[in-house]
């Protein structure tokens, strides 16, 4: 095996890892805030990809330019989901943990059905954009531009999330997370914060979905696979930790790439899952987890 092939695969893993990290960051944010695992996370990613696809079809604009619109749409979807479903799920007296799992899971099936209804089950993809098909040649290592752009956008999004966590709103998020009941006393509306937190988490997925749509096919079932990786990434990094999501995403991306290269492409996911289980044996709350 040549060095350039190895580098090629390593860089590919890195680029994919950043996408995984961003998808996971949205999930982790919601979890960290209110201890809810959103099992419809993959379907929201799928929605973001379809939104990008449809907007691209109608406007002909490049997916890169559609990021703000798509993330805004997803922000709205996140707030709506919180207000309509999650807020209620959090207030039930019985089985709260299980109700959360199955409300979001039911929502996932609902969204998947709706996507099938509107778009049918076929694979579709954005075949014309500024970047599609272009590559950057770095001393024999080719970087596909859509992926590279996606990775850069992911890094920017991570930066933005870190900045947000330092603002007034970010501190309110943090306070709400620390003590749900106490914040009510200092005049913070818990449900408003949670709704915005959901919006932010899903908007993050919106960014990831818009970028992913630039080089990945779209179908009603595309979310499931990314969602599983996102859960693994979040658990590996530690629920609620932004930094954990980033590190774990990269680790997962690299492990996937290396397993495909050295073991068997068909088993690439086994590699990443095994790494995850291995880490959890030593750190039951993930790499950066405190909860």
């Amino acid at each position, binding site marked *: 095996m040549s060095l350039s092939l190895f580098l090629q695969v390593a860089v590919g893993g890195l680029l994919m890892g950043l996408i995984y990290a961003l998808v996971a960051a949205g999930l982790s944010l919601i979890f960290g805030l209110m201890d809810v695992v959103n099992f419809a996370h993959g379907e929201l990613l799928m929605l973001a990809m379809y939104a990008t696809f449809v907007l691209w079809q109608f406007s002909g604009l490049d997916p890169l330019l559609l990021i703000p619109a798509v993330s805004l749409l997803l922000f709205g979807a996140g707030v709506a989901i919180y207000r309509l479903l999650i807020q209620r799920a959090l207030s039930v007296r019985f089985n709260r943990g299980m109700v959360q799992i199955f409300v979001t899971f039911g*929502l996932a099936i609902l969204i998947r059905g709706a996507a099938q209804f509107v778009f049918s089950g076929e694979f579709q993809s954005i075949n014309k954009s500024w970047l599609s098909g272009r590559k950057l040649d770095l001393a024999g290592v080719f970087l596909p531009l859509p992926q590279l752009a996606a990775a850069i956008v992911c890094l920017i999004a991570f930066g933005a999330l870190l900045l947000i966590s330092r603002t007034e709103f970010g501190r309110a998020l943090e306070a709400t997370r620390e003590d749900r009941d106490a914040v009510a006393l200092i005049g913070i509306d818990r449900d408003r914060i949670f709704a915005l937190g959901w919006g932010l988490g899903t908007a993050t997925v919106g960014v990831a979905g818009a970028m992913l749509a630039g080089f990945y096919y779209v179908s009603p079932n595309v979310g499931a696979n990314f969602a599983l990786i996102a859960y693994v990434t979040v658990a590996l990094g530690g629920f609620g930790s932004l930094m954990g999501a980033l590190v774990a995403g990269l680790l997962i991306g690299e492990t996937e790439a290396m397993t495909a290269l050295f073991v068997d492409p068909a088993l690439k996911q086994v590699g990443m899952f095994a790494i995850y*289980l291995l880490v959890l044996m030593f750190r039951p709350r993930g790499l950066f987890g405190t909860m």
Partner: protein
Amino acid sequence: MEAVPARSAQTASPARRRRELVTGAVLLVLLALLPLPIHDTYTRNLIIITILFAGLAQAWNILGGYCGQISLGHSLYFGVGAYVSALLLTRAGVPPVFGMLAGGAVAGAAALLVGWPCFRLSGHYYAIATVVVGEIFYLLFLNWDFIGGATGVNIPYKRALGESWLWMQFRTDKLPFHMIVLGFAALAWLVAWLIEGSRWGYVWRAVKDDPIAARSLAVRVFPSKMAAAAISGFLTGMGGAIYAQYVGYIDPDSVMSGQLSILIPLPAVLGGVGTLWGPVIGAAVLIPLSEVSRSYLGGSGRGVDLMIYGGLIVLVALLRPQGLASLLAWRRRDARAA
């Protein structure tokens, strides 16, 4: 996940337990007679699948409901049971009646192996670890050529043996399989009934509600979880073996997919986790509904069935968080006669 009430509280008085056993026996007889006036294969098949899932959900309930360990990887035990039984039959000529027990035993052992590392994790970490373990084995089975890989295992009808209970093969008649799945579901229900009235039932619920308090009362938490996992895995594996024999063909997609890991607990969750009747009621409502909506609306491939199914899950989870079984309010007003 917080320690929240997961079961409408009620102490099992001897009188109530007897009444439950009688109710169970009556229901068993009624279900045994149910297919007699029904002759179309579609309906009979639907009833068989419903009863099978009632048994599987009950098996899950033993670990997830009573002991509170929300496993989302039960497809592994189902698949292991199916594969062990099917391979013993096709490769070694072992009758499925024994293969079913072997499949259950291997699945129970698998549950112990999975539990050993995973029970150290709590809440969502545990749930996701079980998803991952299930997914790993799905992928491994998919790529393991020795056991047929993605092609799966075909269980041929052996003409020489004819219709046989020992070999669990029946050419056209679905009635024997109806009795077999009914026996399986009754077994799972009986195990749950026995657990509810025994030390294990109390101790497991204590582990679910608050493991720290449970330990201060001399409860051994880890062995409790392991025992629940082994029983749950065994029963799930048995169900998988029966399913393999019933459909005559298995592959990783049909017996080990992650989707199955959700389908197995779903009736228990909708019916009422940690209750005796929850899985039964949940399966009776859910399976026919999803099958009917799939066959009437799913044909178009337009996802209407999925929308109805998903919407229903959301509605029941929100409106009846303690499960449909709680609608039977008479059970709660019971006076204790100790």
